[in-house]
């Protein structure tokens, strides 16, 4: 076995193209998942028992089954029903790209909703009572106190979730998408140098992970800046 650096160099542009697809998948479904997760989390944290039970089945299903099954269920499964094939949704559901986005969004929303629920329940009671004392209405309390506080608390865990999403996004290659893993597989089919190309792909994932961790540290520092606040001490006082 001889290690072939030149094949990595030669095919790097193709892998970099894959990086953009991967990032697109992660950020688009991450964003949509977050938008979906917030109302779900508020329902899960609600005091109404029925409201709390409603998203349970959805979250239970998406957290308890492999993502690969979810992707295939949407991509291949949708074609079983003529009603879907004839509907206006079909142009979207026949595209592997959108199927991947839908599957990732639903998957990450289920995990994120539970994370946010945990964060909402971790907000100190006194802060909510203080909001009540100020006469805030429920919607205002949620908008001004509950959600901003929950985001600060959830951020480290959400960073981990996004990194898991990045790794899960490699499953998009199973439905023909050319993300990093997909690009690597097509290159290997031609060159038959699996070790070199998968090594290069792995390094790209590591690099993206490292950058994401760095970004989250910055956002975390900014969002939780009250924790680092020092009362300015004036000289001569």
């Amino acid at each position: 076995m001889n290690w072939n650096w030149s094949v990595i160099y030669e095919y790097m542009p193709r892998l970099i193209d894959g990086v953009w697809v991967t990032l697109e998948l992660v950020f688009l479904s991450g964003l949509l998942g977050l938008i979906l997760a917030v109302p779900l989390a508020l329902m899960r944290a609600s005091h109404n028992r029925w409201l709390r039970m409603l998203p349970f089945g959805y979250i239970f299903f998406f957290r308890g089954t492999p993502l690969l099954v979810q992707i295939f269920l949407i991509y291949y499964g949708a074609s079983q029903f003529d009603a879907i094939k004839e509907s206006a949704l079909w142009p979207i559901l026949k595209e592997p790209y959108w199927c991947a986005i839908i599957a990732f969004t639903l998957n990450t929303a289920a995990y994120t909703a539970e994370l946010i629920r945990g964060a909402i329940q971790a907000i100190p009671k006194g802060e909510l009572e203080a909001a009540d004392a100020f006469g805030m209405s429920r919607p205002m309390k949620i908008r001004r106190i509950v959600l901003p506080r929950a985001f600060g608390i959830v951020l480290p865990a959400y960073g981990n979730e996004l990194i898991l999403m990045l790794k899960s996004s490699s499953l998009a290659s199973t439905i023909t998408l050319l993300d990093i893993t997909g690009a690597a597989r097509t290159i290997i089919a031609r060159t038959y140098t699996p070790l070199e190309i998968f090594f290069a792909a792995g390094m790209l994932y590591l690099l993206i992970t490292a950058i994401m961790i760095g970004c989250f540290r910055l956002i975390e520092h900014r969002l939780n800046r009250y924790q680092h606040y020092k009362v300015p001490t004036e000289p001569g006082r």
Partner: protein
Amino acid sequence: MDLLGFGDLLLSGTWVTIKLALTSLVFGLAFGLIGASAKLSSFWPARMLATAYTTLVRGIPELLLVLTIYFGGSMMLMAVAEKFGYTEYIEISAFAAGVAALSIAFGAYSTEVFRGAIQAIPKGQWESAQALGMTRGKTFFRIILPQVWRLALPGLGNLFQVLLKDTALVSVVGLNDLMRQAYVATGSTKQPFTFYMAAAIIYLGLTVLATLTTTWLERAADPAARGARA
């Protein structure tokens, strides 16, 4: 379970999935314990190696790991075998590649769980064991490890859930697991939704079973909880 005559096929796949998950769990736990001991070792090359292992494996997708070991593993093995004068073709089975990839991944995550658990045990216990004349090795196996089990269980339970779901990835390299058999059934019946849904429900059953087992083990490992029940 009939499912258009494919019920038995799905069940046989479920059995393969269970075997894959449990085999990987055993090797993964071993990797995790070795990794944690290396991370806490006073010998710096061991610490560095363990850190490289966890950083590397936790940063790359499990699917990529499965593909690398399945397609690249036989090349690596053949290169090693050639050094010993063996020149025949070596092929890695999908099951072996799956066990290798999943246990390496599980090992990397459980290294951190074990490390946390070991560090959570008060230093005084090491010191009192030393005062009793126990060697470090004896202290580890008799005093620390039995307690690590209780502290690490919740974390390990979560990791096993992840492992169970990741077994589906090995179907990509052709292992006849539950996911693969659902795919096969889909091919001849043209009913993808039915079979992937059936597979999803079986996976759901397995994860629920794993959760129940973990809860039971946690109770059994915690003397305080046991006392409360009696």
